[in-house]
């Protein structure tokens, strides 16, 4: 079964998704972007998740080499060849509460907060995230509970989401 991106062999806790284009957000304004992220494969025994097999694992360093975090990496290069059932768009709501225009090039999303729904058409729907920028190089990313896309019909919950926060303090 599809599963949200996992920590892989290094047991990382975040997903760094690189935006295709830089996003500029005006002070006090908000916008939304959709990024394709790869899904992993969860192996179940009955209803119990046994293990998660990463698909196209690639990693990135966010921050300095001694203080930063190793993250799972996602960009258009990673997902372009993947089957539609192994990738899904994630909605990232950008909000700028600082007093300057902020340029956002990436988002670091905590993996443990991501959940997965299956639409009536059996398409995977990952939960969304919110990125709030406080300054040119500081932002808070929080996972949300609702799926990134609204579809007709009732979506089945496959992996339960939760609210988790990551502080991006080494630049946007």
């Amino acid at each position, binding site marked *: 079964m599809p599963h949200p991106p996992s920590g892989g062999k290094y047991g990382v806790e975040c997903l760094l998704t690189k935006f295709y284009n830089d996003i500029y957000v005006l002070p006090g304004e908000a916008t939304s972007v959709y990024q394709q992220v790869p899904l992993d494969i969860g192996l179940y025994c009955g209803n119990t998740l046994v293990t998660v097999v990463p698909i196209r*694992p690639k990693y990135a*360093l966010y921050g300095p*080499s001694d203080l930063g975090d*190793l993250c799972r*990496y996602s960009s258009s*290069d990673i997902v372009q060849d993947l089957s539609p059932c192994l990738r899904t768009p994630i909605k990232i709501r950008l909000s700028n509460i600082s007093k300057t225009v902020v340029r956002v090039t990436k988002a670091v999303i905590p993996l443990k907060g991501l959940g997965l729904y299956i639409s009536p058409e059996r398409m995977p729907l990952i939960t969304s995230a919110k990125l709030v920028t406080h300054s040119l190089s500081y932002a808070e990313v929080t996972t949300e509970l609702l799926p990134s896309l609204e579809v007709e019909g009732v979506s089945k919950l496959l992996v339960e989401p939760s609210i988790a926060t990551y502080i991006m303090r080494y630049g946007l």
Partner: protein
Amino acid sequence: MFEEITNWIRENAYLIYRYLAAVATVLVFYYASKIASRPISKLKVEMRPEVVHNLERGVRAVVLVIGVLTALSIVGIDLGGFLIAAGFTGIVIGLAAQQTLGNFFAGLALLLENRIKVGDSVRIGNDGGVVEYVGIMSTRVRLWSGEVLTVPNSSVMGSSVYNFSRSIARRAEINVGISYESDVDKAVRVIREVLRKSELVLAEPEPSVLIDSLGDNSVNLRVLFWAPSQDFWAARSFVIKEIKKALEAEGIEIPLPQRVVRLIEQARNQVLPVETKSRSSQDLQH
């Protein structure tokens, strides 16, 4: 003879009693020091192993010193005078044992500064290995080759210490030489593709492939990429192998060192001088 011994014991009974009491006091404090130091390792506070170990030794030493001083007072030695004498003795010992004291204070500084800790992969001077023990006087490192190196702490404090365990990721640098007849742009593309596909190569910081120099034998490319510290050497080895395979598959030559010999003809019956342009050899660097 037996009567003399008995009489001596009767006359000095009080003194013998005091000496026995002093010995008993030292023994009691010796075992008390062991009991007092045991809870330190069981404290539910996160502490580095070398700090726990040296704290235990410190507590045992303090309790033992109290026991010895108590025993001396039981025997009847004037502690005031003893301490004054100890002060002067300390000055003499300090001058005579500078190196030992230097190691001692360097050990304290190492523990407080947290420069290295047990389990870290380090290089001290020319020696590299894993730190096994950080003591108050010396540090023990198990070298990559398996030998155990004991370094006085003053040397550790005075040396440049490379700590490979403090970084989550490290940058690798590989030099690749391609022949002058090869398509440089194609070679760069091929190498970038190898880096892009490898799981062990980090996508950020982004890898670089630079044209470094036009060497005597080859066009030299410098490949820079970051890899997780725990898989650094595996990543480096894998990338070198994959670059070689990929370049060979695309028909790009990694040349061996070359020489150009030029013969110059001057006149028919004269000996022909052979001018050999021998380029300074440059080993193929990987």
